[in-house]
């Protein structure tokens, strides 16, 4: 939804001059999580189409963002109370993305000013998480920084300031690493073309990340048929335990 809004706004921001267009694609439209899934690498690539086929003299920049489904979370902060670390303060974010990766051809700060970066949610500091109202601005910042740091270390949030390669000013490509503990859902791959500190074109492609085969079946079973699932878990442990005992008794005597 938001991506579509960007696509509409982008041409308006630069006036009536004919603007270049982006033709983006992703290496995989759907990533399947199977038993041996240890993460994946997604290639975001495409071409910049200039009006009249003329390439600008100045250097253009590209930023790509791969963003996972957002969820409402409670973030708790530990503090030392009477010698032990306990959860003291907490805050709520209504739309924290489960995964967020941004790659650009130059560091974001060098390409655009902070305001523009905030509008397009470019960069780990600019993710719009809708913190619950009531919290102080300073607290919100601290919590958001804490969440970004936490998820950055687990590979769920990442920023690669030199991750986009532009060849001949026309073709671009970026590799983005997806860790094994990535949340499933509908992802969006957004591409931004940046010229003179302005976003002049934007395009978006959907990417689906979902469990498949046995893993998918287990997840659905646990959610929808929880009683049957629980019974089969118990049955499995009884059978395995009993089989082990029977096996060893035969070998023992």
């Amino acid at each position, binding site marked *: 939804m938001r991506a579509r809004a960007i696509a509409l706004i982008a041409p308006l921001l630069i006036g009536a001059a004919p603007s270049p267009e982006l033709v983006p694609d992703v290496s995989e439209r759907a990533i399947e999580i199977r038993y041996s899934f240890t993460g994946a690498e997604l290639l975001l690539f495409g071409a910049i189409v200039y009006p009249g086929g003329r390439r600008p003299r100045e250097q253009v920049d590209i930023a790509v963002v791969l963003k996972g489904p957002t969820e409402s979370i409670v973030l708790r902060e530990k503090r030392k109370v009477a010698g032990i670390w306990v959860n003291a303060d907490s805050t709520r974010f209504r739309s924290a993305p489960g995964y967020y990766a941004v790659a650009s051809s130059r560091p974001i700060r060098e390409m655009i000013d902070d305001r523009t970066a905030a509008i397009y949610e470019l960069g780990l500091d600019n993710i719009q998480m809708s913190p619950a109202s009531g919290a102080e601005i300073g607290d919100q910042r601290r919590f958001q920084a804490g969440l970004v740091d936490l998820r950055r270390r687990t590979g769920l949030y990442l920023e690669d300031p030199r991750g986009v390669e532009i060849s001949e000013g026309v073709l671009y490509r970026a590799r983005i690493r997806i860790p094994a503990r990535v949340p499933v859902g509908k992802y969006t791959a957004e591409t931004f073309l940046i010229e003179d500190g302005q976003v002049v074109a934007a395009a978006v492609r959907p990417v689906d990340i979902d469990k498949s085969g046995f893993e998918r079946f287990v997840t659905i079973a646990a959610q929808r048929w929880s009683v049957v699932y629980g019974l089969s878990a118990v049955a499995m442990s009884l059978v*395995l335990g009993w089989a082990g005992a029977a096996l060893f008794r035969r070998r023992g005597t």
Partner: protein
Amino acid sequence: MDIYLPIAGLSVNMLVIVGMGVVVGLLSGLFGVGGGFLTTPLLIFYGIPPAVAVASASTQVTGASVSGVFAHMRRGGVDFRMGAVLVVGGILGAGLGAVLFRLLQASGQIDTVIGLIYVLLLGTIGGMMANESIRAILAIRRGQAPRHGMRRHNPLIAALPMRWRFYRSGLYISPLAPLLLGIATGVLTVLLGVGGGFVIVPAMIYLLGMATSVVVGTSLFQILFVTAATTMIHATTTRAVDIVLGMLLLLGSVTGAQIGAHFAQRIKPEWLRLMLALIVLAVALRMALGLGWRPEEIYTVQPA
């Protein structure tokens, strides 16, 4: 050998998980504890989300105890009457524990409470067992006949109304005592993801004064039913039971349990108790340090 766990939502090394199962199974067969007090912290330490670790550990304890129960039943080491009373108490306790778990989770203090209970419980029981077993070992060294724990008849338990005969345990006591004990372990099973064997075994020996030959078998019998009930509670409420994780742990632990049960008959019981005491104390110490040390993660995420 990486394998993806569908409910935990991450990949793990299969051999590491099976290895954990073997170690835990060994303890289970040796001491009659489910080994959950070791599984849950190990899984969390390995990076499995705590809710999944607690829920899946209970499936593993079920499986590990089933082979243990069979092994002990063959040598007549299960008091079924005592076991049945404990199971009824345990299931009542599990229901109570589920309510407590939800309340604590909502207030955000579940981790701290779990940590504190672990330290207090394991520290006290480990200390008591170590003390008692060292005395017993020294007494035997000096050539005295091994004494039977503390007092054979606890005045508090003798004061309870109604009396049943528990033949195999060699007891004539009120069934309310094992029922209350069962309730306490049921709460612990849900809250801590443990079978509660490390509570029930010392309590059977020191509080109830049961004949030691049926203690391990009967506690495994109780653990078997209560952990099965707990798995059902988790599957229908938290939905955090990972069947693949449970299976990997089980593959290791059924093997370990058999080896453990085999060794248990060769090692002198007082040495067994000392070994268990030391392991319990080590886990308590580790948990205590964990509470005081600055945690690696200051922030934790919880879906809302």
